[in-house]
């Protein structure tokens, strides 16, 4: 019994210690961001590997999700003779929920895991220590540009996901199932509000970009510098990011649409 309590206490202490280190790491990263204004090239280079290289998976997934939405939505709406509202259904689902959330989950799987593995390996091969000994702050030089790139890329990727998704819904609804073209777009235009729907989705994706970037980079930076440590950190990035994105999605939805 005492042993169990001891282990529990030890695990709790370790958890809070890690949480504390994570918060300090975030503060250090945020403090380094103004310096990025002087070196935009570093951020642009990272936006390529974090953002641009994620576009393919975002576009393909967005298209399929939109097409499925079109099919499922049509089958339900047609029972009520409301199939012309398909555009609204697809667009609202995507810009409010699926766009930010699914794009964030894909982003964590593609870019987040890559960031963790890259930073973790840099730590394991003493590249981060080497920078420190060259009087170069690795948080400023390595972490901050990647964090900013993740933060900026996420809303753009979510927007691409939603746009392609709507197109997917259009292909299935209008092209395949015969929903009226004009009704599809005009109802969407009428019912989807820029501030209440689109901007709230954008806010979600900004928050998700922030947390996924933070988790991915911290997991890499705090990894045990061994092959096993890097592999565990990469797994943790994907699992923690997914859980945090889904949890935060509920909180943000409750705050923005709840009342």
């Amino acid at each position, binding site marked *: 019994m005492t042993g169990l309590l001891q282990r529990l206490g030890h695990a709790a202490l370790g958890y809070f210690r890690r949480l504390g280190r994570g918060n300090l790491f975030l503060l250090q990263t945020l403090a380094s961001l103004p310096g990025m204004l002087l070196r935009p090239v570093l951020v642009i280079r990272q936006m390529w590997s974090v953002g641009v290289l994620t576009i393919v998976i975002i576009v393909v997934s967005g298209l399929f999700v939109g097409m499925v939405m079109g099919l499922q939505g049509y089958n339900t709406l047609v029972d009520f003779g409301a199939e012309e509202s398909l555009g609204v259904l697809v667009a609202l689902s995507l810009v409010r929920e699926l766009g930010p959330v699914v794009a964030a989950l894909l982003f964590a799987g593609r870019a987040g895991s890559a960031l963790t593995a890259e930073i973790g390996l*840099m730590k394991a*091969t*003493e*590249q981060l*220590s*080497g920078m*420190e*000994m*060259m*009087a*170069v*702050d690795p948080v400023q*030089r390595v972490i901050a540009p990647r964090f900013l790139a993740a933060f900026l890329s996420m809303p753009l990727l979510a927007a691409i996901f939603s746009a392609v998704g709507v197109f997917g819904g259009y292909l299935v609804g209008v092209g395949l199932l015969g929903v009226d073209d004009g009704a599809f777009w005009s109802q969407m235009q009428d019912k989807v509000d820029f501030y209440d729907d689109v901007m709230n989705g954008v806010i979600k994706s900004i928050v998700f970009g922030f947390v996924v970037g933070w988790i991915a980079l911290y997991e890499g930076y705090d990894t045990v510098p061994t092959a096993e440590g890097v592999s565990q950190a990469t797994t943790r990035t994907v699992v923690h990011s997914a859980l945090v994105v889904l949890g935060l999605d509920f909180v943000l939805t409750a705050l923005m649409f709840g009342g």
Partner: protein
Amino acid sequence: MTQPVVQIRDLRFARGTRMIFDGIDLDIMPGTVTAIMGPSGTGKTTLLKLIGGQLQPLSGSVRVLGEDVPSLSRPALYRLRKRMGMLFQSGALLTDINVFENVAYPVREHTKLSGSLIRNLVLMKLEAVGLRGAAGLMPNELSGGMSRRVALARAIALDPTMVLYDEPFAGQDPISMGVLVKLISELNRALGMTSVVVSHDVREASSIADYVYLLSDGKVMDHGKPDALWGARSDWTQQFLNGHPDGPVAFHYPAPPFRDDLLGGAPRA
């Protein structure tokens, strides 16, 4: 009287409950090559990290180039580090840029020199380590010895006052080892630097060292000029320098009597 470049007094450092250094004193004089030797796991690399301010001691003082390292603020520590170079055991080259850019890296980060000046400077450093022809190669195209020579060129890129070498000879073939021994010795003399070489390659390190510290069990076991140490009477020093398998450092890890272990008792985890 000449002040030491590194002066360590009553240094204590622990990892968890394990004491790594239990009150060591050490002086490294300017212009010398000082070898710090000892068995694996004695904390030689840890000592370099304490000198470089990457770790904080439990107590004691670490003065480097006149500054008390543990009490320095981050900007002051970074200013001090610009005056030191460090050669990591793995080389620690940045793997996403080529050899030339690796050597240019600290110069680009800390100076506003023009591109052509940086180019000349980098080529000079690479020439000094014999790898000017490898400037365009990526780190994954280099052998272990070449990686360390590139890392050495990078470590001296800003003309530091002191260079710390972490196990520079470990895992090297005889030719690479000979090249590194020659480079460390010649660069130290030609550039007027102070060198601290952490190693357990006794012969190579002794051959270039002006002074040697032997560390074990958290203490300085012996120190002196290499010739004096080879003639030392201490059993421990003789065992370490001559590589005897048994002696004051026992062959067997502490364990209960062998007979008891074989004939009874529960199996140990």
